[in-house]
């Protein structure tokens, strides 16, 4: 029998990108731009639907090459173009619950350096379920994806 547990945490990450808020926003809003970074490290995306709008649902199956066992089920809740994206996602591995997250992405043009300098704040409020993941591991994955956004820009 599975021992049930729920560990709550909050991850905060900040990045500066040499690009306008519109271009950083497009990394989420444009399917082609999103496909370039939406998985940590060398992992692969096996399947991904795209429905970027308030109320939109997306499903992504991903994981290590040869074993894309993870499924993220996303609901977009609040979208302010070029400024803010709030979404929730659950993560499962072959049906086993791993976590549920509420993620806030905030973009702002850096006032001192002009248009092509965007500050991104990511706040992910998470509950990890039944010990199937942890905050350190998740933070590493999120940091990897934010770094990839910087590379693609």
């Amino acid at each position: 029998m599975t021992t049930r547990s729920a560990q709550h945490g909050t991850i905060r990450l900040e990045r500066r990108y040499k690009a306008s808020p519109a271009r950083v926003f497009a990394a989420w809003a444009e399917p082609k731009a999103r496909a370039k970074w939406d998985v940590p490290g060398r992992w692969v995306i096996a399947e991904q639907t795209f429905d970027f709008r308030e109320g939109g649902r997306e499903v992504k199956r991903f994981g290590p090459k040869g074993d894309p066992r993870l499924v993220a089920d996303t609901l977009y809740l609040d979208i302010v173009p070029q400024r803010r994206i709030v979404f929730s996602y659950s993560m499962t591995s072959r049906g086993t619950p791993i976590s549920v997250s509420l993620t806030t992405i905030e973009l702002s043009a850096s006032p001192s350096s002009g248009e092509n300098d965007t500050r991104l704040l990511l706040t992910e409020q998470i509950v990890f379920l039944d010990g199937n993941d942890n905050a350190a591991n998740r933070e590493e994955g999120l940091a990897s994806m934010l770094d990839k956004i910087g590379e693609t820009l």
Partner: protein
Amino acid sequence: MSKRFTKHSTFTIERSFPVPPARVFGAFVDAKAKARWFVGPDEWEKSNLKLDFKVGGRESVSGGPPGGPIHSYNALYQDIVPNERIVLTYEMHLDKTRISVTLGTSEFKPAGQGTKLVYTEQSVYLDGHDDAGAREHGTRALFDNLEAALKREAKAA
């Protein structure tokens, strides 16, 4: 350009009930049972609660003071373990304005003959609407309602 900002916060509420987890969990699983306690103040006008209790299922209810703004709750069920756990996300609107988005975890733990319910709410409040103090106060009132509903049920049995 309107001001855009957010506030993130977390609170936890623990309650003990003298009935087993299955009974407490039962108050969450269908619209009829949940509508007995998941309601605003008595004087509020309210809609019928709609509830599709399954992972991926939705829940909605709205209400507000007569002549005042309508508070709308819309939830999505993210994880369900019968008699043990419910994880959902919900958004709140005040009339047409989205004021917050929340990740809520309810854990139902056996405690002797009874149940300890641990509810953890992780929220983002949008553009200065609402705040964690008011939300926690309102959520505690809902759990007071739940306690009263379970007592009525025990008496009727």
